[in-house]
C-alpha cells in the first residue's frame, strides 16, 4: 500500500503554517477521507467541517492543491498525480481554525442580495403554476442546484480585491429569484444587487463557473442581472 504525503494548514485567525502527515493510499479514496484519517488516526486536534459526505450539504469545501473543491466528492485520483496533497482553508473567508472558515459574511451577503423568496399568495390561495418548459423556469433550473459550498466565492478574484462584493453565490441566488415568476420582490432585489458591490463588479473571469462542483454558471446569472438592471434603468425603474 502506497502512502500519501499530505500537507495540512494548521492555525487560526492570527496565522499558521503547513504541517505534514503521511496517510495510507486507498482505493476510491476521497480527499475528505484523507482529512478524516488524519483527524481520527494521527492528530485529533485537527479542525475541519463536513456533514453529509455525499455532495449535498456544501460544508466540506477546502483548498486542495491550490484549488477550491468539495472534498467529499473529490477523489484523490483526480487531484493527486504525484502522491502529494496540500490542504488549506477556503480563500476569501476568515479562518476560524485549521481548515474551518467563518462563513458568516458569505451568508450575510445572500441576505444583502435579498436571496429570499417573497410570494404573492397566502395559505388559502391555490398553488401558482409554473410551466416547466417556460424560458424563465429553464433559467431557474440551470442555476437552482447551488449547495452553498462557497467554492465559487473562494475562487473569485473580484471578492479578493473588493471585499464588499456580494459574490457569485449570492448573485446566483438572486438571479434564480429574478426569474421566478411567483416572486414579488424583484424590483427591490434588483436595486440590492445592482451597483459596484453587486453584479456590476463582476469581470466575467469565469472562475466561479469553472470551479462550481454543481456545474452552475454564476457568471451567466450575473450577466442576466446586468441586463435586467440596464433594462430597468432605461425605463427609470432602478
Amino acid at each position, binding site marked *: 500500500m502506497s502512502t500519501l504525503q499530505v500537507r495540512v494548514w494548521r492555525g487560526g485567525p492570527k496565522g499558521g503554517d503547513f504541517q505534514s502527515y503521511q496517510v495510507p493510499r486507498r482505493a476510491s479514496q476521497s480527499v475528505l477521507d484523507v482529512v478524516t484519517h488524519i483527524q481520527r488516526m494521527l492528530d485529533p486536534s485537527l479542525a475541519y467541517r463536513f456533514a453529509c459526505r455525499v455532495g449535498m450539504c456544501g460544508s466540506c469545501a477546502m483548498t486542495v492543491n491550490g484549488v477550491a473543491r468539495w472534498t467529499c466528492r473529490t477523489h484523490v485520483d483526480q487531484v493527486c498525480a504525484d502522491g502529494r496533497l496540500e490542504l488549506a482553508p477556503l480563500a476569501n473567508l476568515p479562518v476560524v481554525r485549521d481548515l474551518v472558515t467563518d462563513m458568516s459574511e458569505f451568508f450575510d451577503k445572500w441576505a444583502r442580495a435579498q436571496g429570499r423568496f417573497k410570494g404573492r399568495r397566502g395559505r388559502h390561495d391555490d398553488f401558482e403554476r409554473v410551466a416547466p418548459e417556460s424560458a424563465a423556469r429553464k433559467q431557474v433550473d440551470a442555476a437552482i442546484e447551488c449547495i452553498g459550498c462557497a467554492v465559487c466565492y473562494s475562487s473569485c478574484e*473580484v471578492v479578493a*480585491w*473588493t471585499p464588499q462584493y456580494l459574490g457569485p453565490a449570492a448573485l446566483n441566488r438572486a438571479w434564480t429569484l429574478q426569474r421566478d415568476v411567483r416572486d414579488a420582490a424583484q424590483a427591490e432585489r*434588483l*436595486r440590492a444587487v*445592482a*451597483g*459596484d*458591490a*453587486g453584479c*456590476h463588479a463582476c469581470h466575467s473571469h469565469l472562475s466561479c463557473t469553472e470551479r462550481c462542483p454543481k456545474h452552475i454558471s454564476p457568471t451567466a446569472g450575473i450577466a442576466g442581472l*446586468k441586463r435586467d*438592471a*440596464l433594462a*430597468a*434603468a*432605461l425605463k427609470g425603474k*432602478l
Partner: protein
Amino acid sequence: VSARREALLWGAQRASAALLALCVVIHLATMIYAAHAGLSAAQILARTHGNLAWLGFYSIFLLAAVVHVPIGLRAVLSEWLGWRGAARDAALAAFAAALAWLGARAILGVFL
C-alpha cells in the same frame, strides 16, 4: 452608490465596446493597407482632406473611445487604488474631455 448610474455606465461601456470592435478592425485594416500600398503622408492626407466619410468614421471611433476608456479606468481606480466617489468621477470627466479634445484635434488635422 447609485445602482441606476452603474447600470447605465455598464450599458454605455458595452455599447461603446461593440462600436470599438468594429472601428478598430476598420482602422487596422486601413493602416495595413496604407503601409503595404506604400502611401506617403502626402498621399494619405490627399485622401482624407475634405473626406466626410473618414471624418464621420473617426468621429464615431473617437466618441466610442471617449465613452469606453474612462468607464474602464473607473473600475481600475476603484479596485486597484481604492479611489471612489465624486473626486474620482470628476478626474475621469476631465480625462474624457482631454481625450475628446486631443482626438478631435487629430481628426481635424487630417480632415481640414
